[in-house]
């Protein structure tokens, strides 16, 4: 499928998908990459070394530093797929060199949990 490239890069990995927005600051442990917001449907799961798909980021703007910290602590997602880019996620990925793309709703809904994919955030393709 074709996606819009926000931050360039080329990564391969397995998909971790959620339908719920993510508050990076409150919701994720920056030292481990584990979601610790009890009300989130990915509670207890690690986003580390996954291609993470979530609709958009919410909450504190400091979440951008959480994304950078995840990278610094070597537990960041390999790449990110969003439905709508928010400035916290986009700026966090830009500083941290984490490939970020935007997928159309129908494409997003067709993503399969756990599937190995190639995220080509240079040509804007997802295979």
């Amino acid at each position, binding site marked *: 499928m074709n996606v819009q490239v926000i931050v360039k890069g080329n990564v391969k990995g397995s998909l971790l998908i959620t339908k719920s927005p993510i508050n990076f600051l409150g919701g994720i442990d920056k030292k481990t990459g584990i979601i610790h917001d009890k009300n989130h449907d990915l509670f207890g799961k690690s986003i580390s070394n996954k291609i993470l798909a979530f609709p958009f980021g919410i909450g504190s*703007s*400091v979440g951008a530093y959480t994304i950078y910290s995840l990278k610094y602590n070597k537990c960041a997602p390999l790449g990110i797929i969003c439905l709508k880019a928010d400035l916290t996620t986009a700026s966090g990925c830009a500083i941290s060199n984490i490939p970020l793309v935007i997928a159309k709703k129908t494409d997003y809904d067709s993503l399969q949990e756990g599937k190995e994919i190639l995220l080509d955030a240079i040509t804007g393709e997802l295979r």
Partner: protein
Amino acid sequence: MELTKYEEAALDGRHGETLSLAYRVLVAIGEATQSDRLIPIKWAHLSGVNYNTIGDAGKDFLSHLSRDAKFTVKTTVNPMGFDFDTVSRYKLDAKFIEGQQSIKNSYEKMGAIPSFSCIPYEIFDVPEHGTHVSFAESNAAIYANSVSGLKTNKEGAFSALASAITGKSPCSDLRDDKVRRPNLTIRMKVETPDELAYGMLGYFAGKVAGSSVAFSGTGDIDRRSCKSLCAGMGTSGRCGMFTIGEEVGEKMDFDKKEMQIIHDELNTSEKGDVIALGSPQLGIEEIADLTAMLKGKSFRKRCMIFCPRAIKGQMKDLGFTNELERAGGEVLYDCCTCLTPLIDKDDVDAVITNSVKGAYYLNTSNEVGVNLKSLKQIINDETI
């Protein structure tokens, strides 16, 4: 996105690594929000100041950046983790204090005004109506758009930082008058709402609204309630603006039932060991109100009161600091309830607060329980 020749060159690194990084961020968010160009902004307000939230990664990043980065527009900064004047009263380790000092130094070296406040709209003169600014703190961005007549997106920490360095921001989203027009109205159906009800209205709105939302049926909202509304909204969603009065677009009701659902989510304890007031920080009006409410009363428990340093002198001159301390309050400047390292789950089981934003982050980040109730209820239950 169309860039000028200078912007292209800066992006390519021909004006140094710092500017290249800053333009890379602006171009990424410009692409993300379908902007066609960059426009000048007059004021940047930065988040990412508290060592508790940005940690060593953020500290090292800022230290490196401050070697040659300089802010080119007025730049103010969010609260940090503690108040250097009173830090010895709290059991923070030397590593934390050093980390915070380094972050403070980096921002000051780059030219930030050391405001350490999440309410820049209340302690600085507000520029002319319609002026473009870049505010990262979510409650401040919403307040700036909705009350102060300024234009900003709900910036990320790095997008506001890039704006501070370049003096520019992509012209998109809430910088566009079409996007500022709400397409959803939330009808306030809770009668005689207090600041907590407004905080929960904001939290509800953040979950359902897009970029901008209209509220109807609220009547006049005082500053305390308005700040609570902005902070609640900034916590739960991506919405960066509201209007009051006119009903437009799709309609939804916010009633007692909806409010109860949110209260059940955030109120995780029926009692607490310590009271925390101020997320957002309390301004001089709220301090005056609080002082009046405490007349002849004393807190039964520790009560932390968070304020901007900008009002310290005025508070003292008007006798407010004395009166708050007489009632057992601990007045803290430069820091805030939200993500404070001064509340540790090893010492505290639950915190009493009237802040919806504070409640969310105390629950999720500090991992302590929260007894969420209005200021009036707190004074009623927790003083003698």
